[in-house]
């Protein structure tokens, strides 16, 4: 079944390779996780006691996505930077076409972000004493938000790696592009935590879904120009 989609089956091979490398060092995951935990503890320590009243959901939703955005920026550029550092780019270029490489790296970033959110989001809810009103909507928001973060960051990570992995370039490039996603995700999270009318979450989720689609399609079309010399 999966062999009918060559991009996907080759992409899965790239994913397997990346996961194996990641399991050997666990560098990207540790960086991602430690960044998220550090920010989470700081946030909880400094504002956790003051979060009360009707504005609480607004602030909590914004804080959650600030934590996820900056942790993603800390870890997601590793996929391509690591290829450049170890000098395996040329071998990967010979082994696969640009699109399967993109699919593999994208799936790797999705796996990385999911394994982060699985730990961080429950911790966030516990440490800030939040109650999730719309459980399904909240899960869908986190799912689509993490997918979108990974989708738009993957091609930017490739650009940053080609540009010589200059320190904060990733955050600078990603912020304006990810802002529509973050605005939608914050708005949906606020609704899911009990602020505003529950129906409002549907349009936000639809927006997140389309953002994912556009980011993925545009990245697949443009990746070839970044990857090939």
């Amino acid at each position, binding site marked *: 079944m999966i062999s009918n989609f060559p991009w996907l089956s080759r992409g899965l091979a790239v994913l397997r390779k990346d996961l194996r490398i990641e399991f050997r060092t666990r560098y990207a995951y540790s960086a991602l996780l430690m960044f998220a935990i550090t920010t989470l503890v700081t946030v909880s320590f400094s504002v956790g006691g003051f979060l009360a009243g009707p504005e609480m959901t607004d602030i909590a939703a914004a804080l959650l996505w600030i934590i996820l955005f900056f942790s993603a920026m800390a870890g997601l550029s590793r996929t391509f930077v690591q290829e450049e550092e170890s000098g395996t780019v040329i071998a990967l270029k010979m082994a696969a076409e640009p699109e399967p490489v993109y699919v593999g790296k994208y799936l790797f970033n999705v796996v990385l972000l999911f394994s982060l959110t699985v730990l961080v989001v429950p911790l966030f809810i516990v440490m800030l004493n939040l109650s999730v009103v719309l459980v399904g909507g909240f899960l869908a928001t986190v799912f689509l938000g993490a997918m979108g973060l990974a989708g738009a960051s993957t091609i930017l990570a490739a650009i940053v790696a080609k540009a010589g992995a200059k320190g904060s370039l990733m955050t600078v490039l990603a912020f*304006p592009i990810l*802002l529509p996603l973050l605005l939608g995700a914050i708005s949906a999270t606020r609704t899911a935590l009990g602020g505003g009318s529950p129906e409002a979450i549907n349009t936000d989720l639809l*927006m997140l879904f389309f953002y994912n689609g556009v980011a993925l399609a545009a990245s697949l079309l443009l990746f070839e*120009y970044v990857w090939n010399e």
Partner: protein
Amino acid sequence: MTWQIILGIWMSGVVIASFIYMPATQGLGEMGRIIVYHVPAAWIAVLAYLMAMVNSIHYLRKREIRFDRQAQVNAELGTIFCILATVTGAIWSKGAWGAYWNWDPRQTSIAVLLMIYAAYFVLRSAISDSDMRARLSAVYAVLAFLTVPFLVFIVPRVYYSLHPDLELVNLAERSFEMDRQMLVVFLASVFGFSGLYLWLYNIQKRFEILFYKKATMRRF
């Protein structure tokens, strides 16, 4: 040289007319005069940014370095006019809404637009190889332009904008004579700004070509 002198006289005429010939708008009052500067600046900014993206796509397809230079020049000019539109908008906002900046949806989207192109220039300055710079910044320009519809779609839906639309200013409860006087000055300003853009674009493009020639000559 004649064209530059004509353009100078034309723009001076527009400035004088916007204060003397043009009547104060109803609703917006004397503050409404800023429409002669604010709207054309925003229009030129959008035009230049669109040209930057079109040139980026051309570069990716044809791989000719002149398209990259045209994209860069357009992005620079777009940013200058975008800053002008933001500043005139903020001045108007102080008079009409009471604060220079209050994150009205229009202000949010123009701020993000400026940030996108600021990131574009940061990316360009980070890469020294000219072919690599052209390729990566072209990809970024196309990618960034695709997020603009989301901002246009989501931001006004989440928050209600107070920004007046053009037809609202022009047509609501106004006599024909006032409309026509205002429209004449406004259109003259749009023509003047477009001429200014073409002139600046021409100078900047010639400068970039000379700069590139000098850089390649030094290498050999």
